[in-house]
Structure formats: C-alpha cells, structure tokens
C-alpha cells in the first residue's frame, strides 16, 4: 500500500526532495505549495525538479545532502542532516542535540 501511494502521488523521499519538503511542513507548518516553493528557492530549482529523481540526484550530489545510493566520500545520515539544516535555514532537533553532545565549540 505504501508503495502504491509513493508511486501514485508521493514526492519520492531521498530519490527527490520529498524529505526536504516534509521538513518544511514539520518545522514551519507550511502547506504543500508554500513548502515546495520554499525548498525550490533554497535549492535554486523549479517546482517540477523537486519530484524529478534525475535532476534531484544531481542537485543532492552537488549540495552533498545525502543520496539514495550511498556513495563513498559523501555524507550519510547525521552528517547529511547538518548540511540540510544549513541549506534550508531550519533547526533539526537531532542535529542540535548532536552538537550539544560533542561540545558546542567543536562544531
């Protein structure tokens, strides 16, 4: 069922910009149109690009914010979220707490 929805109407998660648009709904309470416009502007892409896995793979690799395919020398997991927080201009809860754990002066 989840797969059917993902293909029929879902943004595509990390294959595209689905995780990023979701973060704007979650952190700023944005409706879908506003969230897409915000992310598109921050990434300098079009609204259509946001759900295109070909274009977004290039953009995500260029920005180094995490890829579906876990390639060497790219961010993975937590380190990707450090960069996503900065690029989207939002606080990510686990990133803030990670910084607190390792010491504010280190990062």
């Amino acid at each position, binding site marked *: *069922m*989840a*797969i*059917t*929805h*993902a*293909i*029929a*109407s*879902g*943004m*595509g*998660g*990390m*294959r595209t910009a*689905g*995780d990023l*648009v*979701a*973060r704007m*709904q*979650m*952190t700023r*309470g*944005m*409706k*879908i149109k506003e*969230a897409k416009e915000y992310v598109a502007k921050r990434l300098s892409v079009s*609204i*259509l690009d946001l*759900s*295109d896995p070909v274009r977004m793979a290039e953009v995500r690799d260029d920005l180094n*914010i*995490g890829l*579906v395919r*876990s390639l060497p020398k790219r961010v*993975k*997991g*937590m380190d*990707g*979220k450090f960069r*996503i927080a900065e690029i989207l201009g939002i*606080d*990510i*809860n*686990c990133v803030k*707490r*990670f910084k607190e754990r390792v010491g504010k002066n280190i990062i």
Partner: protein
Amino acid sequence: MPDILTRMGDGSWTRMTESALKKDLEEGTKDAAERAGVPPLSEEELKHLFDIYRSPVKFVSVEPGNEIVLSFDAGTLKLQRLGINTGRIHNIQIMERALGADTMEMGHIDYSYKSVKPIVGDEQQEFEQALLVSTLPLFYGAMPNLAIYSQPDGPVANPAELLPKGKISEARASQEEAVELAVKDIVYVASAMYESGADGINFDTTGAAGDPDFLATLRATKILKERYPDLCIELGMAGEFVLGMHGALEYEGVRLAGLYPHEQVKLAQRAGVTIFGPTVNTNTSKSCAWNLARAVTFIKVCVEHSKIPIHANMGMGVGGAPVVDNPPTDAISRASKAMVEICRLDGL
C-alpha cells in the same frame, strides 16, 4: 451491459455500468454532505472522479509536479508484520533508500504510549541510533489507546461493564480518570523521544476509544507544545466522527462527541498540532466509487477549514481504500489520485 471493472469496499471485483457508477458517486457525496452538514462535491469534481474510475488502466497517478508528502503510522511495523526478519533501523533504511518514503516513523510493536512508558529508555537508545544513520525526518509514534486503561488491562473501572448496568456516572468517571493517566503517559514518552532527537511525534488512531481518547490527545498536545514549541506533532484520527463513549466531554468549550473532520481540525490547531490526519471509514458493502466520493467530500472541507498541513489517512479500510490486508493497486492508486487532486491535500 456493465463494462467498468471496479471494486467493492471489501476489495472484491465488481462490474458497473456508467449510470450505476455515476449514481454511486452522487450518493456517496450526498451521504457525507448530509452527515457532516457540508457541501457535496460539484458536478466538475464528480466528473473528475467518474473519469478516474472510467479509465480502464490498472494504475493511475497525479501529474508530475503535483506530488505530495507521505507520512506513516506504524512505520517500522509494516515490514515487521510481514514476518521479514529485519530490525527497526533496517526498516527505516529500507523505507528511506528503497521505497521512496518522505518521512518515517519508529514505533513499538505494542503500539501504545502506555505500553511504551516502562521501556522508554530502550526506545530512546534505538531511536538515537536510527537518527545517526537516516536522513529523512523521523517520527516516534504510538496510539493514545485509552481502551487499555480500563480493567482488566488497566487500573480504572471498565466503562463497557458499567454502562450495561446503568452506571452512567461511574462509567464517565472512569473515563475521566483514564484521560488524566493517558495525558501523563503520552507527555512522558513524547518528551523522552523529543529529547532523544525526534523530528516529530505521531499520535496515531486518535479517538479509537471515543471522545476521552481525543480529549487526552488534545490535552497532551497542548502541554507538549508549551514545553517544546518547536516539536512537530502529527495527530491522525481513528474514524470520521468522534464516538461519544462519554458523551459530555469538551475541549475549550467544544463538545467532542460527534465532531467531523472539518470540526476536529479546528480543535487540533488550537491545541498546537502541526499536521492533522483526518480519517473516513470504508463501507464494505458499497462500491469503492461510493466510498471514495464520500471520503473526498469530508476531507475536502477539512482541508478548506485548516491552516495546518493535512495528511489524510489512506491505509487499509479508510480514505476510500478497501478493507483488505493486501490492498489492490488499482483501487489504492485511484483513491490516492482523487484525494490529492480534488481535496488539495498536503500529504497522505
């Protein structure tokens, strides 16, 4: 001659004529409109639904650029239920890397805040590890589930045993006691998971035990948002209207029993909910077309009344989806497309 291949609400195949399909769509929207006191779908919207069902193809979808965000209840449990021998962190990675999830949720197999409370430390430990290896936003979720606060599973007298004896005030008192206990458990667990780094907390199947269930969730939400203003709370409902198991409970002066989605969302907003998940139940003896027209009517008005993102519940047996364990893609994709395009949803 019936020539449109479609399904009933129980998932079984059926064939309909064009006139029968139109009639079911009209009656579905009329049923919702009358129950909730909201406008029925317009001719144009019914025509759009008709075209979606009239299409002979197996799978339909939204147009590129119109996609929405997916959130999940019982996220990590979906693969566990299939008997696939993976852990919850594996499941998050599979959903993130292989199955196109925009967000994911970790939940305990005994999916209730009350059950999680004694083992929350173990949940925090695994959740913190999951956060290290995942990129997508990660919720922690469970049900408010007030039913398990009554005897023999819980501490309070069982209202289902008191009511048949005519002990109405005693039944209500036990439900009010359960609300107080549930609020404490929900706030305790949600606070712990937020302090472990959760991007959001999901209250799934809210209202399953009726108006006390909904009240406990609204009260817990308010406390949590005062404590953690940045916390994202997603509140998903159990049914299309709030069951009046108590009947007289109110939240900020509004009686909860009998509220429909467009009224529920206003209280959710007031309590501080970030994302609201309305639910419309499926009638198994009616066609999927009847059910979807009905569901779209409820949800469309809910979206129009909401200032916060709406992620409609579209799982097995709700939101126009048939009540079956293995939902067919033809029925689900039609429900998915219609919900997004007609209701202007923010997510599912």
